[in-house]
């Protein structure tokens, strides 16, 4: 299975290099105070979501699925490797984002209420990446990368559009979420921190099992 993860990194070497370059550029601008540090965290999500999607596309182009299916790794191994690949990308992206965010705070280029606020923002955005992967990966395992592009776009637009709409409605005063806000802030801080992590991990785990189920049934 490590062979499959290595293969993903080798195949995506050029793409990943490009991401690293872009992250370095944005990190520079974040450290100089030109851009907000949260942009780097956005890259972590993009890396975690786009990386596996590109890997699927390359595999389909090479007809790798049949070869992998005929090898001892088996179908479950293929799914496990792809989920681990997504986790590694999200982890690496998240760590880089956290380090840059801390640097930005250290150099006084960001206004934060507590020193660990950038870390919390990076972690929260990584969790969003985890949620996106949880939704996208089973879709791609089911429909393939080509058909899934449209479905993924719909999911992205619905998620982010929905959030933007909520935010706009709240700001405009058409929607009052203060009750929910109060209820959430009333929760114990430990639960407030742990709950999103646990929910995201649970969804990722459920998503993995759904993908295994889909891929076991798939005709390669």
């Amino acid at each position, binding site marked *: 299975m490590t062979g499959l993860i290595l293969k993903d990194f080798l195949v995506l070497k050029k793409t990943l290099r490009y991401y690293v370059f872009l992250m370095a550029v944005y990190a520079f601008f974040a450290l100089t105070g030109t851009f907000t540090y949260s942009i780097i965290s956005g890259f972590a999500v993009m890396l975690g979501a786009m990386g596996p999607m590109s890997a699927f596309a390359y595999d389909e182009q*090479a007809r*790798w699925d049949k*070869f992998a299916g*005929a*090898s001892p*790794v088996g179908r479950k191994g293929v799914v496990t490797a792809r989920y681990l690949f997504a986790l590694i990308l999200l982890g690496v992206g998240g760590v880089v984002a956290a380090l840059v965010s801390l640097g930005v705070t250290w150099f006084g280029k960001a206004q934060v209420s507590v020193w660990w606020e950038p870390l919390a923002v990076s972690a929260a955005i990584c969790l969003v990446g985890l949620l996106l992967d949880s939704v996208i990966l089973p879709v791609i395992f089911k429909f393939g990368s080509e058909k899934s592009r449209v479905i993924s776009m719909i999911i992205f637009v619905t998620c982010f559009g929905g959030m933007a709409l909520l935010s706009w409605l709240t700001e405009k005063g058409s929607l009052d979420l203060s009750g929910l806000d109060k209820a959430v802030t009333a929760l114990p801080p430990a639960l407030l921190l742990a709950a999103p992590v646990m929910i995201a991990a649970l969804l990722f785990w459920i998503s993995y099992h759904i993908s295994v189920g889909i891929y076991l049934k798939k005709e*390669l």
Partner: protein
Amino acid sequence: MKNAIEVRNLTKKYQLFKLDDVSFTVPGGTIVGLIGENGAGKSTTLKCILNLIHRDRGEIALLERDNIKEERLVKEDIGVVLDETGFHDTLTADMVGNVLSRIYQKWDKNLYQELLKRYDLPRNLFLKEFSKGMRMKLSIAAALAHHPRLLILDEPTSGLDPVVRDEILDEFFAFIKDEDHAILMSSHITTDLEKVADSIIYLHRGKVLLQGEKDLLLEQYGKLLCSKEQLAGVDKALLGGVRENQFGCEALVKDRHELKRRYPHLTVDPVSLDDIMVLTVKGEQK
């Protein structure tokens, strides 16, 4: 090892096609050729054997193990060459070796390097620069480098020039020298199978139409060239497909010695695997 592959009553149904109750064996120490026209079920059969698609019915044993219950174990001993190589354009032969060494427990790095050298394949050139022949040789090197006991090959020589094909067939001969090894190979290029195969399985419209030792089949079958009037006088039980044209008739003879005995005045030529396929299909179309 008695049989490297045992397929019993394999059935797989699609909307427009059915692989119907296919049974055959691939004995150890032999090369078995799978022939048939496009859409006859060759690839479906190989995919079922490799569990890439799910069969509706039947049993498959590979190296005396169930191909599904002991899938991971049995696939350690199988080398596979599919019609598309499966390796990405952005990899090099060395990278492929690196990846596969983490997939196959018995991966032999030295053997792989030796095969690359023998096939004259560059180690650090991206595969997008490889010709079709080079890609196929790489697939074969990758299939052999983990010391498999069974090779399953889907059209391994298609699209290759005669020189490369000959080199590849030599490699299969070398592999089969070990009695514990076996090869199942599908091919449209029946002349290749005439060179290397010990047995032939002819799939037609999802069914096994013919199977047996290649030399016996070629010895037993024949091609009758005669007029329509002469053909009318021949016992139909002795004939397979018939093709008529303006000059006369060509007919596949199932037992040429028997036909020669009963009709000594008729000319029966030796037959090739191509003739068997063409006459069967043409005869059916008629």
